[in-house]
């Protein structure tokens, strides 16, 4: 069997393939330089960290979304889990007078449990992923408002029963959203980095990640190869729910009050980040690095445009145009022939 075909050792990459792999990096670099040129204040480190801070929540939620996507699912509930977590954290401190630590634990637990509920609905009851998480989304959007009768939660608020809330945001809780490491790096950015590195390691460097992807690729095959597929899919949702509630904690600790929202735009931004991630490194699949880069990409764009005083409505448009451009570049370049 030596005469079979001509073999070359390492895969040679054509220029097209290279361009496809790094298209988003190059675009990002162009954007950075362009904004710098147009507005020198753009490039100072404080602003760059502001950008990272601004995208941290979306990136964290996006990582969760991309993990569920890897396992062949889709978590539509991340936005409302994050929104509910903001309310839950506020409620815990302002109404129940919990401390920062307890609030943290409680909210993360809540996120994990919601993820578990999603997962059970999907793997045990057999509801399709999109459908199950969509229901959860609606359910949470309403549920989070019931304890306070639709009011947002702040210290001294009136409760539905007419009494006044006695608690307040624990100052220790606000550290997460408002302080900086070494006086430079905002803590949310540190959290995002930790989440990203851990998730990347899990998904790309451990056998668990391999199994997540295998399940997403062909669940039957993964099952026959001995993977406990149901447990993995459950875990994917638990991770996603926990990350979403972590995102909610960051929002709460930054804003310092429990604001009412359904989380729809958080969901879309998180999904956008993980979808843009498909194009990063030409992987054509969800992955952690791509998701984080996708979130940063959009963040840089929005920050730069705001600095250049572009009206808010052009921002969405430019976001769309740049997305289409980046995608056309990544996916269109040197496409495989039939």
């Amino acid at each position, binding site marked *: 069997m030596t005469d079979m075909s001509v073999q070359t050792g390492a895969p040679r990459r054509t220029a097209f393939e290279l361009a496809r792999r790094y298209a988003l990096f190059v675009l990002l670099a162009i954007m950075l330089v362009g904004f710098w040129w147009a507005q020198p204040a753009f490039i100072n480190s404080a602003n760059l960290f502001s950008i990272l801070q601004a995208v941290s929540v979306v990136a964290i939620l996006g990582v969760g979304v991309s993990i569920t996507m890897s396992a062949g699912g889709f978590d539509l509930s991340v936005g409302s889990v994050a929104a509910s977590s903001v309310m839950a954290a506020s409620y815990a401190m302002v109404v129940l007078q919990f401390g920062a630590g307890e609030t943290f634990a409680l909210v993360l637990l809540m996120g994990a449990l919601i993820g578990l509920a999603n997962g059970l609905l999907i793997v045990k009851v057999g509801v399709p992923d999109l459908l199950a998480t969509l229901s959860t989304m609606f359910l949470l959007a309403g549920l989070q408002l019931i304890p306070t009768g639709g009011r947002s939660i702040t210290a001294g608020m009136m409760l539905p029963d007419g009494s006044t809330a006695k608690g307040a945001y624990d100052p220790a809780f606000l550290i997460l959203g408002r302080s900086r490491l070494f006086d430079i790096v905002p803590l949310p950015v540190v959290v995002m980095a930790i989440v990203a590195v851990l998730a990347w390691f899990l998904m790309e460097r451990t056998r668990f990640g391999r199994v997540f992807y295998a399940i997403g690729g062909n669940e039957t095959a993964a099952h*026959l190869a001995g993977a406990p597929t149901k447990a993995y899919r459950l875990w994917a949702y638990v991770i996603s729910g926990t990350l979403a509630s972590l995102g909610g904690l960051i929002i709460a600790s930054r804003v310092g009050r429990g604001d009412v929202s359904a989380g729809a735009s958080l969901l879309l931004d998180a999904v956008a980040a993980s979808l843009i991630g498909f194009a990063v490194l030409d992987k054509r699949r969800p992955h952690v690095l791509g998701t984080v880069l996708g979130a940063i990409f959009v963040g840089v764009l929005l920050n730069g445009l705001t600095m250049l005083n572009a009206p808010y409505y052009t921002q969405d448009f430019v976001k769309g145009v740049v997305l289409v451009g980046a995608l056309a570049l990544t996916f269109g370049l040197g496409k495989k022939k039939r």
Partner: protein
Amino acid sequence: MLRKGLLAPIRANRPSHSSKAIRQRKTSTNRTLTALSTLSPSSAAPFAVAVSGVEKAFGPTRALAGADLAVRPGEVVALMGANGAGKSTLVKIISGSLAPDAGTITLGGRTVSFASPREAKAAGVATVHQATDQAGAGGLTVAENLLLDEFCGRGPLFVSGRSIRKRAAAIAAALDLDLPLDRDFIDLRPAERQLIAIARAVAAKASVLILDEPTSSLSTAEAERLFTIIRRLAASGMAILYISHRLGDLAAIADRAVVLRGGVIVGEFAQPIDFPAAVTAMIGRRLEAAAHSGEASTAPSILSIRNARLVPGARPFDLDLRSGEVVAITGTLGSGKSRLLRVLFGLTQLDQGTVTLDGAPWLSSGPAASIAGGVFMVAEDRWASSLLPPETPGASIAGTIALPHLPRWFPSGILDTMRERAVGNDAIRRLGIKAKNADDTLDQLSGGNQQKVVLARWQAAPCRLLLLDEPFQGVDVGARADLITAIRNSQSASATLIATSDTEEALEVADRILVMRDHSLFAADDGHGSLTAAIGSVETAETRTQP
């Protein structure tokens, strides 16, 4: 019908078109069609289909390097070649789903160039592709799938559930197929999928019919039925190109055999076809008869099944497997072979009965438990059971082999891709898998080579009981012999249970052959029988199922 052993001289019971002996050619780069036609001077009719100088490269891999081939109306041409020789690539080019890099295709004398399968279909080329996962669409019923070509082509615009059922039933009846018309295609077993693919191609009433390993999961009876149809179609003037690694199939129907190797035609064999020579041309060496004792084993029993009933109402049976033994189960489509294997692997339960493995009761809760307990299974449908989409991490040869062994190989959880690659490269070398390296994804491999990877997966770790369901689907005769030797050598301390619908294959690989019928096992020999006895037993079993 009687099917002989692999190396026995095989002759079809039909008049031969030519009395010429073997003609072998080393290369065909400048071969012309006229030269080809000299092979069969008796028929001067124009070719129904002819390709010449066809080339196709996938990156650095040259799948076809100037192949020439021609089929006359009414002629059945067998296309032979080792795994990865380029057969399926040629089929895809003729059927319009791949564009050739060079070369011409003529249909009835007219040069054509198909931009899509649609055009090829419209020009009268009907194809059964090798991959059964492309035989139909899930979400549609069997009836709808039988009519898929009509829907996708120019069938009647308006449809209703009733009309679909009626027309589909007609198609199935024309081929004497009994298919569950209302079931979702996604729930079908590979054999049923294959039957649907065949039915669709035959119903297309094409002038050229291409069959790429159509019988790989069919049993002898179904294959025989297909041959009858093929003969009838050929008699009506259809040109048929038939690809198979089952030499018995080819012997039964081929008027002529063409051997493809390294992307070029290296030999042509007219009637009577000398298969041993063809195989030598195909794999580049002589094939030795696989030697195995067939003697009763006295080794300790590994698996024993007592009073087992697969489904309610079936006759209970016993089964013992001894260490080092290779036992084959054969039987018709749907007789329950796969079910037995699935039971042992923990995917379904016995209706009644006990199973003991190494003396302890064996009741697996699922694949994870089975694998941990040393019971491995190669499932029958590699596309559904083993292949991952190419963009998935772990879709490479190395990753595919490693998947079930990850917990054992990497107990800490952290992957060591070097180790995976080493195992992958070892498999490539050992099984002669045609691939650049262990990082190749499986979609780039030919069907037989994919199957070898799937087999290699379960040889990558020691086991107690190896369950193989249709393990040699699409694997060429040379590789099959290698694989069997490998199984015999490496599995000396374990038992192997093979479910195969191909009797020839069973005879070749097994120490013992059992026949499954109506979800019950019948011993083809009672521990001291010979292979001949086995054949006889198989045959009586088969005749009994068809009263």
